[in-house]
């Protein structure tokens, strides 16, 4: 009986976990580079140069970067710009009310952003900016439409064009439902040409697919690589002790296994008296 109940429990738990994953925009999977010090150092460099002007990381100290194999001197010479000390927290000078005036919203602190959003989100989001003349900043984003932030990595990304094909249901002037395919071509300045055609006998799901064209494949690879490093750095920064936690965890588990065996045999030797 108990076994059956446990079985039912296990079954419903697996169902619950299977249902637990869902999402809006399909996210690309970020490569895992949490053990790659060179990648994390590159991510740190990109973070300090491209993010840490508007975004703060108020819980993060510069000298915590020594965990990534950098020395205090290297941090001081390469990553400190405005007279801050190596033991300081990563504050920014931009004031909240100014930020609201300039961008409409204050840039969030990035200390634990990777834990809130996930590395895949950051990786996809930073690679999904496109120029769009209809926006005040000139930039738009596929993952976060009408985002307030202009593309901070535009120099790394270089000029690129985007073709976005969506297949969706639309209402005709007579009020009937029909499927339409919209093809929007954005040039590298953000001017778009949109073409819409009606699909007869379409029986599939809605589609939203965007393809970016870079100036070269090398440019695309380098950019994806940099964003992956940056996303991994943000993941590392969201919990700098995470690698140590996992390493220590192995030893704790080994100790507890040993403890369990001792406790199990101790129990057995006492209980052999109980008839």
């Amino acid at each position: 009986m108990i076994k059956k109940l446990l079985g039912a429990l296990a079954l419903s738990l697996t169902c619950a976990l299977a249902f637990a994953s869902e999402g809006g925009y399909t996210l690309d999977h970020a490569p895992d580079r949490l053990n790659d010090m060179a990648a994390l150092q590159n991510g740190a460099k990109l973070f300090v140069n491209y993010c840490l002007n508007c975004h703060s990381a108020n819980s993060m100290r510069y000298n915590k970067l020594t965990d990534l194999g950098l020395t205090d001197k290297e941090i001081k010479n390469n990553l400190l710009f405005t007279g801050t000390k190596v033991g300081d927290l990563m504050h920014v000078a931009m004031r909240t009310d100014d930020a609201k005036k300039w961008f409409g919203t204050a840039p969030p602190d990035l200390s634990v952003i990777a834990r809130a959003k996930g590395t895949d989100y950051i990786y996809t989001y930073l690679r999904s900016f496109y120029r769009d003349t209809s926006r005040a900043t000139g930039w738009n984003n596929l993952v976060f439409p009408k985002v307030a932030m202009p593309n901070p990595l535009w120099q790394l990304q270089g000029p690129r064009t985007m073709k976005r094909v969506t297949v969706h249901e639309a209402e005709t002037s007579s009020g009937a439902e029909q499927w339409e395919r919209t093809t929007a071509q954005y040039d590298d300045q953000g001017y778009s040409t949109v073409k819409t055609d009606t699909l007869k006998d379409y029986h599939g799901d809605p589609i939203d697919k965007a393809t970016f064209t870079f100036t070269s494949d090398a440019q695309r690879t380098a950019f994806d690589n940099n964003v992956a490093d940056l996303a991994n750095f943000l993941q590392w920064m969201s919990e700098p002790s995470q690698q140590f936690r996992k390493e220590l965890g192995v030893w704790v588990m080994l100790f507890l296994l040993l403890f369990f065996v001792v406790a199990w045999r101790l129990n057995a030797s006492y209980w052999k008296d109980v008839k």
Partner: protein
Amino acid sequence: MAGEKTVETTGLLGWIDKRFPLTSTYKAHLSEYYAPKNFNFWYFFGSLALLVLVIQIVTGIFLVMNYKPDAALAFASVEYIMREVPWGWLIRYMHSTGASMFFVVVYLHMLRGLFYGSYRKPRELIWIFGVAIFLCLMGEAFFGYLLPWGQMSYWGAQVIVNLFSAIPFIGPDLSLWIRGDYVVSDATLNRFFAFHVIAIPLVLIGLVVAHLVALHEVGSNNPDGVEIKQGPKDRYGRPIDGIPFHPYYTVHDIMGVAGFLLVFAAIVFFAPEMGGYFLEANNFIPADSLKTPPHIAPVWYFTPFYTMLRATTSDFTWVLSAGAVIAAAALFLKGKLSGAWRIIIPVILIIIAVLMKTLEAKFWGVVTMGGSVVIMFFLPWLDRSPVKSIRYRPTWHKFLYAIFIVDFLILGFIGTKPPSPTLNVISQIGTVYYLGFYFLMPVWSRLGKFKQVPDRVTFRAH
């Protein structure tokens, strides 16, 4: 010395024993407390609950040393603990994992009581203290969850405190009084902190002591539901089927502790967020009173009850109202109530049935949610079966229990999801089953063919 006690012990221990019941307490609760020898896997969870309580108190003390109960500083102080305080991350993860694991072990502990009838006479008070502990635990978890001051902390507290505003007449003022402000704010954070670190823990520890004292007064139940004190005794008057708690169950529970810590450490070190169920992703965004998250879900251990709240729509109150009318009719015509009660209780039920359609559904949602916990207090009197243990109940009873467990899990799962029409219908069916399980227990628990309960506990030597 006048009135000096005579004690068997000598030396320092004798000196103490003359002034304080040390040896006698040790004997009464450990070395000469006779527990049935046939405890099974389910009996680990009581001692494990005590272990988690200790983990929570000890880690809690260290967290309070570094946490700032201030709306402007709270979120950052948690990150300070995670990064700057030596071993702070470990302490914090132990505390956050401990909160969820507390509910895991307590739910399993309660389920054990349900299976083996551990709430039946003479153990009603143990059960009542236990349900009170569960209520305290819910309060403790609720107050504690506000402290990290993330978006889920904030909006979860906002939603739950707003529930009180559904109470007729006093509701809006009551929720204002609880918050201490018009929205959840610094004042709320400070009072929740006080409740979390002082008020509730004091009550909780008192109740745990009462729970154990009551248990040791009447003795432990066991999987067979047989009273070992009524069974055969040895020449010293000790029950033959009982064994001293120490050393037999202390070594046994140490084994349980080792097994539990393996699971606990695996979560703390490898999956402290537990896929977003123990630490929600949204709670890594600082609380913002101007940005409501699109989907506010309580932590998993509250979701079964939260689902019952959401299930109570204005359509659903028809079902509840009809249930009250049928109960009134059944109690009047067929019930065994004596004298005036035969009239009074059905009349009260009819009044409730009418009020269900006159007061707003949100209020009845709160009542359903509260009632689904409070009903557990009455379990000792709802269960009328001639046997205690599930082992000797009719097979179809076991199916009712199995469905009850699955129902509870489904309700819990739905509570983590955004509302949808399909899920709402499922949650309403689930709520009817949950309430029916308890309210109809006086009827169904005595029906069916019960098996013969043995005179002695069933035990196979290891």
